[in-house]
């Protein structure tokens, strides 16, 4: 009997719950939310094996996998691992991700996998990095850029990240560095219709997650698209309430290295509503963890380290409507 749980039913969680069901209906799908009305709404939309359950019941029911969305993911991850579940954490908060990576020993002790940063960015961006790197014999530089936000929590995280420095890997010098947030302006070309966006350094987790998969890379950096207003107001509280769901978002990864004697660079991207894509990625990661299709069955890591069959992962995502893309001509 397969049992999945989804905790947090906001913009990402609701999509994750639907995708967990669509990817192969589990025998039981437990839904947990701070809002009983919201949980009931999602349960009604999914039907079938879905039922609303409080967090304590989720833990005592020994689910095969728990997908965490919303707040408090490190604490819930530790509890879920102890309960014997694989855990997929969709958070993009750097501090949360650092805490989750610190649960590696707990995950190994429980004999379970903790998938960290399984969303749109990080998440899909990490899989794209891995897929692009597969065409190279050695990876020298990895650059990730993202644009757009999902639900209100994602918008707040995006706003806060532009005011705090994030880690960047510089293997030729000091190793981990933290350049100022808002610096490093770079024009990045995302898949259409997003197109060209000015991107800046921010508190982003991709370098941390990707470095674990590519420790020999000389340079790993991440940028986030931002307007002039975003940057100027980043250190202030949000001046207006975020939308219930953001507009179209994009990710772009560029992986440079060597293929034989040749220096090559491969660019991949994706465009979708971030919450939709994040839900699909989290749900697929949960199914793969249960099916044993990830590179490891215990421990704590991001998708760049765990998804070796990137073609299979991207194919299944494409079937769920989340499609990767590559530039053609001079537009990339």
């Amino acid at each position, binding site marked *: 009997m397969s049992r999945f749980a989804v905790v947090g039913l906001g913009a990402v969680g609701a999509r994750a719950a639907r995708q967990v069901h669509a990817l192969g209906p589990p025998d039981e799908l437990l839904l947990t939310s701070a809002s009983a009305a919201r949980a009931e709404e999602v349960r009604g939309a999914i039907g079938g094996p879905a039922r609303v359950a409080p967090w304590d019941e989720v833990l005592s029911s020994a689910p095969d996998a728990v997908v965490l969305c919303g707040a408090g993911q490190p604490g819930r991850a530790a509890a879920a691992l102890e309960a014997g579940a694989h855990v997929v954490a969709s958070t993009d908060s750097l501090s949360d991700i650092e805490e989750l990576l610190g649960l590696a020993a707990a995950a190994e002790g429980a004999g379970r996998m903790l998938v960290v940063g399984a969303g749109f960015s990080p998440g899909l961006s990490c899989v794209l990095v891995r897929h692009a790197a597969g065409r190279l014999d050695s990876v020298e530089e990895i650059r990730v850029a993202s644009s757009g936000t999902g639900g209100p929590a994602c918008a707040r995280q995006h706003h806060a990240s532009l005011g705090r420095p994030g880690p960047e890997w510089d293997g030729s010098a000091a190793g981990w560095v933290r350049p100022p947030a808002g610096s490093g302006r770079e024009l990045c070309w995302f*898949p*259409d219709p997003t*197109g*060209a966006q000015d991107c800046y350094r921010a508190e982003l987790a991709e370098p941390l997650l990707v470095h674990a998969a590519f420790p020999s890379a000389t340079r790993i950096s991440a940028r986030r698209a931002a*307007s*002039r*207003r975003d940057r*100027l107001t980043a250190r202030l509280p949000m001046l207006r309430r975020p939308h219930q769901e953001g507009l179209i978002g994009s990710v772009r990864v560029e992986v440079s290295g060597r293929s034989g004697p040749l220096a090559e660079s491969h660019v*991949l*991207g994706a465009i979708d509503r971030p919450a939709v894509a994040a839900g699909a990625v989290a749900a697929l990661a949960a199914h793969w963890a249960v099916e044993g299709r990830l590179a490891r069955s215990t421990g704590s890591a991001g998708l760049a380290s765990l998804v070796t069959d990137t*073609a*299979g992962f*991207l*194919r299944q995502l*494409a079937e769920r409507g989340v*499609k*990767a*893309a*590559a*530039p*053609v*001509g*001079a*537009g*990339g």
Partner: protein
Amino acid sequence: MRALRRAVVALGVAGAIASALRLVVRQAPPPPTAGGWRELSGPDLR
């Protein structure tokens, strides 16, 4: 002297309004370039 002071104030107010507008009003998108993006499919996903 009064006229000069008024001119400076007017320029200052105009500059402040222009700065505020630049924060709010979106810039025109960059001009289109050649090329584009294609979805990964088939041989790309093997």
